[in-house]
């Protein structure tokens, strides 16, 4: 099930192109952010490596949030097309997604600004690792709360049944500080965030009272102490330091201060 490229004249053996080739991001060593709106805090993304569940610190969780779309006459591909096109608009107000304006495509890098309580905003990002017609997956950078793959997908709930959409997150807390907050703060916020996202999407598609189910499975209870040093990238700490430095930067911008406000401080 691979598609052969054009055969070279000299009969040389060439590797067939797998049919998933266009769905995956190209390999990158570090992330690079494109243009972001002026209101975005663009920190902790450019120059960072992506991390997955293998590079995180905390326990490994698989969390699945799912909602059925009864009465919605759309194929899974049509639902995903809507989701990709307006991805940021379905997020709760506590999060802002600054990605490409048109859609979600493999290799895209987006900046995220997340309210984490107490008036503090955390700046981080995601890489679009994979995107096909019926699903797409994000991978997080160093310093993000989670070392995670987050997959958004749609499928028929059962043969001839309604389409269902889901968010599935395979994650470890990225460092010991985040892991400390996992049981009480982080997990609850994460649950509420994706539940509300699915409710917003379902309502947009015409479901009056969406019912979101949540299933959490601890895949590995072991903490990876060899990755405790991830704390040096902690985006929360770095964003707080950046925020606390705002008055000083404002002072420098006053006439005679001699410094322009940087758009991206890494």
């Amino acid at each position, binding site marked *: *099930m*691979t598609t052969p490229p054009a055969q070279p004249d000299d009969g040389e053996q060439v*590797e067939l*192109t*797998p*049919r*998933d*080739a266009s*769905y*995956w*991001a*190209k*390999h*990158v060593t570090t992330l690079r952010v494109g243009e972001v709106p002026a209101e975005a805090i663009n920190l902790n993304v450019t120059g960072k490596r*992506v*991390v*997955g*569940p*293998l*590079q995180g610190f905390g326990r*490994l969780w*698989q969390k699945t949030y799912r909602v059925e779309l009864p009465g919605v006459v759309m194929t*899974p591909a049509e639902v995903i097309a809507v989701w990709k096109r307006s991805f940021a608009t379905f997020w709760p107000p506590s999060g802002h997604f600054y990605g490409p304006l048109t859609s979600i495509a493999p290799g895209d890098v987006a900046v995220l600004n997340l309210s984490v309580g107490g008036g503090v905003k955390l700046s981080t990002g995601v890489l679009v*690792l*994979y995107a*096909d017609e*019926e*699903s797409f*997956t994000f*991978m997080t950078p160093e310093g993000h709360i989670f070392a995670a*793959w987050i*997959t958004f*997908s*749609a*499928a*028929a709930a059962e043969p001839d049944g309604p389409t*269902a959409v*889901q968010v*599935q997150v*395979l994650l470890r807390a990225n460092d010991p500080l985040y892991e400390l907050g996992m049981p009480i703060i982080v997990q609850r916020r994460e649950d509420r965030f994706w539940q509300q996202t699915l409710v917003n999407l379902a309502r947009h598609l015409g479901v009056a009272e969406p019912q979101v189910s949540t299933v959490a499975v601890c*895949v*590995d209870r072991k903490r990876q102490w060899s990755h405790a040093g991830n704390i040096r990238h902690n985006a929360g700490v770095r964003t707080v330091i950046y925020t606390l430095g705002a008055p000083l930067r404002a002072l420098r911008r006053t006439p005679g201060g001699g410094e322009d406000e940087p758009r991206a401080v890494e």
Partner: protein
Amino acid sequence: MNQGTSSTMDVRVDGDVSVVDIRGDVTAASEAALSEAYQAANTPSTRAIVLNFSGLEYMNSGGIGMLVTLLVRANRQRQRLLAFGLNQHYRQIFELTRLDEAIGIHDSEAAALAAAQAR
């Protein structure tokens, strides 16, 4: 939630190393097949499991996620996970997702078996 995909996974047990020959698609729909293959490969004496990807035709992010859970299961049994038969495209995916940091990738079955036997 990609449905209707197909894969076969045959297991060859040779002493303390088991080889899983993967053919077809590796997606979330392959979970039962991969789990069955692991059960067959996991004997009391198994020290390493070698995944043969030379028959791999398609893999999505759900498939990569399953490999992580397989790795967790193997590590729990103190088993190493190795792979061979990955073409350039899938090697790059292993590098991008950083699976290659936990799953040893080799050019051939002989090289993978030699690495599996190394103490």
